[in-house]
């Protein structure tokens, strides 16, 4: 069984520290991956009615912008993790060659 984790939706008094700051969304995506979730999700409510928002509706992120961002921060940490492991001389040489071509 695989699990998806949906990013929090916010009440109208949502705080920018929690939702949609670059560092918070980076931590969210990486934590989801670390904890074994197989996917992450964002809702799609571009222009909700004020009535719905007042009744516990949400501030949300555009799903394509948010998932594009999350794709990069999860992909990039693998690059960083690879570089962070103690590399062999041959691996360093290989990286050097790739990057200097």
């Amino acid at each position, binding site marked *: 069984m695989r699990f998806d984790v949906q990013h929090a939706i*916010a009440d*109208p008094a*949502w705080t*920018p520290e929690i*939702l*949609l*700051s*670059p560092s918070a*969304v*980076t931590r969210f995506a990486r934590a989801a991956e670390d904890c074994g979730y197989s996917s992450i999700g964002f809702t799609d409510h*571009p*222009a*909700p*009615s*004020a*009535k719905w*928002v007042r009744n516990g509706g*949400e*501030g*949300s*992120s*555009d799903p*394509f*912008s*948010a*998932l*594009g*961002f*999350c*794709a*990069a*921060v999860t*992909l*990039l940490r693998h690059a960083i993790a690879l570089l962070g492991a103690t590399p062999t001389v041959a691996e360093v040489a290989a990286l050097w060659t*790739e990057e200097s*071509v």
Partner: protein
Amino acid sequence: MKLNYQFPTRAVKHWDTWIGDRDLADIAVAAEECGFDMVSTTDHPFPAQDWLANGGHHAFDPFVALSFMAAATRRVRLLTFVLVAGYRNPYLTAKAAASLDRLSGGRLVIGMGAGYQRAEFDVLDASFADRGPRFDAAIAALRAAWSGEVVERDDEFFPAHGHVMLPRPAQRPGPPVWIGGNSKAAMRRVAEVADGWLPFEQPAAMAAITGTPELRADQIGERIERLREMRSALGRPAEFEVCFSPAPTRDPERTAEQLSAVLPEYERAGVTSVSIDSQARSIDNCLSEIEFLGKALAPST
């Protein structure tokens, strides 16, 4: 003079083989590290075969691509170059833009144009004949949505009653809107409502394809002067951002040589950024071109 880097649009068609083990983030990171001020993407969701056969190109979705590049960088600004106004409902555009502006820490610039490809409008169920008035209405709709207030507006194209879009963009009152194109209508929008202008050097042959009027580099100064007068007459700030796209060349050394000769002249004319439209044939050429052009042209900081 600030620099924008437009990665090679020709590469998108065969992206897997072109990019290899790297990705868009490598291009954005290289541009940031080498002193570029902006990176950009074009907007062609579903181009027609006729246009592709006549010099057209494929593109990534601009919001997805720029969000990906934003996640890898800290300083470089992200430019939609240009978003075709009529392809999307402006409230959807406002939402995607607000989210990207948040996620990038306020680094988004919305470059927008009227568009010229009737077939692409048709396949996207977008209205071509009245794309001009719809473009004007879309700019007003974006800004209304970015207010974060309950929107109540009667509008011929995009009325909204009792809707609210949260969270607001990080930039206040919203990301800057720059208008792409050389036409009189584009210049009118720069004068009346926009924050910047994206003119393209356009030899007569290209003008025939794009439908945007011819513009020579030596004409840019007089156009900017005219726009300053128009803006002042409207009670708006005379100064505005101008990101000029010189006609691209294949050879970075030639680009650097030609540009360094004319940059002081552009600067005097009121150009604030120059866009490099990359023609690199491989990712390795692309990354070394970024480094070379950055060293040759980016202001040393």
